[in-house]
């Protein structure tokens, strides 16, 4: 009997925590947040939340629209602020949670906060770097009590107003920053990117030279030829997949819209309505040929020997030392690769090798966005707004990280010199009323493009290495899933 009881209890406990505590492998802190989440979720029903928030939001929206009536809510909009002169005597204490644990540890963030305090001595900024941010922040968000500034995690755009203070109208924001529409809903911007990324390919210039490559490739076929040359002429790994880390594989999704299809409206507007997005258009473009690069590279032995034990930290030094030819990652990775060894000068960044109609397109877009807690007090909201604008315009963070400039008047780092002649565009946002469609499709089809869908890209590598499925089979599977999801969500499909 005792045995039964012990068993029943331990089973029940194991089952309950299995789901809720799944992401909590790295510390007790997560456990508490998970527990908090479950206990508080019911005491603050979503309906109440929205009702309460709606009133403040509409007020704030009005303020954003007519600009002058800020006294109504007491919080200035982004465009109304002048950094360095307004609110310098404001006293507040704000908390900012973010995912840049590496910058928290190496003191970069502390140094920036200190510089901020030179201008705004009475605003105390408490920072917290969160490991496993993507999952953790969502859990914290639903509790409502997470601080004043956070980086917006994967929420539905229709929920933005429930959680975040509007920054300004989209129109005003577009005059101030690039990529203002990333977290836009109903004409209002809710976020400011801390930096922006341009999507290209990291490569080692010395390896390219040794392999006898004189011109950067511009099509998938040329790129695969380059990889073959690297394999034939050097000891370097032509393309390092970074398969084991997972999220590094999901990085391939970043090229599927603007880059692969030459259409800034593709990813957020047309993709969900396309019947066969994974068919081969036959001209070395499209999503098909984007992932074909990966499949063919693995199938032809142009990647590392054992993909299951790739090491993300180790690869930085390897590409720096010329042991790796290319890696497909966003521009944010550039600075880390340069810092990882003595041959930082060898690291280059090139546009993704797909040419649509004679033009190479580069997709640029904001990284994580700063946003302000809608439930904070007015003083804290104001202080947060000041801090965010200061971070964007004065901190130099974006430039130092090698990011594409967020501030309209900002400067671009040198690494983007290879992008001359390419068309740099940001993906257009979804049309009104369809803001959540891509998220819904991602979730329903379980392909999760640009939303943590690493498993499907890893599957390409597995299929290519083991020969278990042809590339056409894989793409047919994706098409099936995509079409099923379109049916389920009753989305209008154009051919």
């Amino acid at each position, binding site marked *: 009997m005792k*045995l039964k009881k012990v*068993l029943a*209890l*331990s*089973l*029940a*406990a*194991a*089952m*309950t925590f*299995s*789901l*809720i505590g*799944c*992401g909590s*492998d*790295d510390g007790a802190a997560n456990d508490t947040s998970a*527990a908090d989440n*479950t*206990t508080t*979720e*019911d005491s603050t029903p*979503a309906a109440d939340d929205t009702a309460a928030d709606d009133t403040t939001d509409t007020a704030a929206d009005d303020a954003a629209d007519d600009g002058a009536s800020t006294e109504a809510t007491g919080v200035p909009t982004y465009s109304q602020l002048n950094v360095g002169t307004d609110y310098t005597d404001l006293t507040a204490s704000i908390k900012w949670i973010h995912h840049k644990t590496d910058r928290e540890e190496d003191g970069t963030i502390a140094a920036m906060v200190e510089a901020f305090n030179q201008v705004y001595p009475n605003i105390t900024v408490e920072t917290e770097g969160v490991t496993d941010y993507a*999952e953790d922040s*969502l*859990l914290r*968000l*639903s509790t409502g009590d997470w601080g004043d500034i956070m980086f917006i995690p*994967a*929420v*539905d755009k*229709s*929920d933005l107003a429930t*959680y975040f203070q509007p920054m300004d109208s989209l129109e005003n924001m577009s005059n101030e920053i690039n990529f203002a529409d990333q977290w836009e809903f109903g004409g209002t911007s809710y976020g400011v990117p801390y930096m922006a990324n341009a999507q290209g390919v990291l490569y080692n210039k010395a390896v390219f030279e040794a392999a006898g490559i004189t011109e950067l490739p511009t099509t998938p076929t040329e790129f695969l030829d380059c990889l073959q040359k690297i394999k034939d002429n050097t000891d370097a790994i032509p393309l390092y997949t970074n*398969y*084991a*880390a*997972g999220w590094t594989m999901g990085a391939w999704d970043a090229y599927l819209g603007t880059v692969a299809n030459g259409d800034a409206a593709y990813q957020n507007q047309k993709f969900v309505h396309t019947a066969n997005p994974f068919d081969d258009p036959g001209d070395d473009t499209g999503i098909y040929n984007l992932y074909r690069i990966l499949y063919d590279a693995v199938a032809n032995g142009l990647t590392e*020997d*054992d*993909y*299951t*034990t790739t*090491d993300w930290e180790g690869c930085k030094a390897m590409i720096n030392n010329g042991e790796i030819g290319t890696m497909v990652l966003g521009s944010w990775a550039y600075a880390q690769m340069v810092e990882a060894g003595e041959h930082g000068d060898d690291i280059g960044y090139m546009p993704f090798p797909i040419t649509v109609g004679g033009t190479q397109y580069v997709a640029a877009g904001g990284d994580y966005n700063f946003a302000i807690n809608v439930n904070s007090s007015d003083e804290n909201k104001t202080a947060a707004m000041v801090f965010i604008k200061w971070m964007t315009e004065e901190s130099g963070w974006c430039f130092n990280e090698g990011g594409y400039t967020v501030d309209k008047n900002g400067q671009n780092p040198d690494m983007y010199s290879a992008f001359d002649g390419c068309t740099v565009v940001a993906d257009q946002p979804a049309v009104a009323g369809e803001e959540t469609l891509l998220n819904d499709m*991602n*979730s329903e089809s*379980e392909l*999760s493009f640009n*939303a*943590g*869908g*690493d*498993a499907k890209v*890893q*599957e390409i590598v*597995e299929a290519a*290495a*083991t020969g278990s499925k042809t590339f056409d089979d894989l793409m047919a599977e994706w098409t099936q899933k995509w079409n099923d999801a379109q049916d389920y969500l009753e989305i209008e499909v154009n051919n």
Partner: protein
Amino acid sequence: MAAMTQTVNNSGRHKKRTFGEWARSRDGQKVFVMVAFMIIPLVLLFVFTYLPFAEMFGFSFYNMKYTGDRKFVGLKNYIRVFQRSDCFGALKLSLYYMGGSIVQLALSLYLATVLSFKVKGGSVFKGFMFFPYLINGIAIGFIFKFFYTRGFVFDTVLQWCGFSLDNLPYWLKDQSINNISLVGTSVWRYFGQNMVLFIGAIMSVDAELYEAAMLDGAGRFQQFKYIILPSIKTIITLNVILSITGSLSAFEPPYVITDGANGTGTYFVVMHEISHTQQKVGLASAMAIILLMIIFAATILQKVFFKYVFKSAEDEDLNATAKRDKKLAKLAQRKAGR
């Protein structure tokens, strides 16, 4: 409760007590103390175990994400779990882990038996073998990631033993053996803990029994079979049940070492992917409930199985008596015939 009814009976015999008197009496105090001691663990249990579980059970009937609206869909989530190939396909991987747990139990039972007798350096061995259990599961994951990397620890050791690197498989890449590699890490982690539990149980066996058995001419193996095994059957049952349920819900090795990719995604890893990446919280909750049912079923089946197995072990004596009676009868017949 028992105390309460007694109070009622007592109060019937004596004259009626007011509540205040009752509260100050020994019976009343007893009830208060009991309630006071019970309330904290019960509240904790309710708040942190049953309440979240009930929440999750509720989620399983909704089509929902972590944020945003919920839509009631009835049993659709459960139906979808059964329609998906990946959910139950993942359960097949549990067979690897069950196989591993059998190896693990056999190994730990063997070592426990050996170490429970006088062995030189016994405590040192016990310590070394129990040690892996004390390491955090995530750390173990990272240790083994490097352990299995091509040309790293494991390959180097095997090369010392004369294997050539070209003949060695890729421990995590080769889909025919990568699950076995992962199961190996879990066996390595838990066999020491099982062993210590077994040793504890074996220690409680009366040493005089061994002496008596030896006088009767029983060897070491017979001692194990007839004395040790029946004496520790409870703990064996417990360990087997925990190991099998553990293999149904294997999570850490595949999640940390291979990220559940390359054909190593167990039921839990698939559930994690569905709930956190695809954000189908309702579906994942339904998966959790179904797994709970499977575990219940597996546990009950094992209880029945062990009842049967150990019953026959106890019957051994009866058979022996019957056999002896037969032999005696034969002897008597032969005598009579002569």
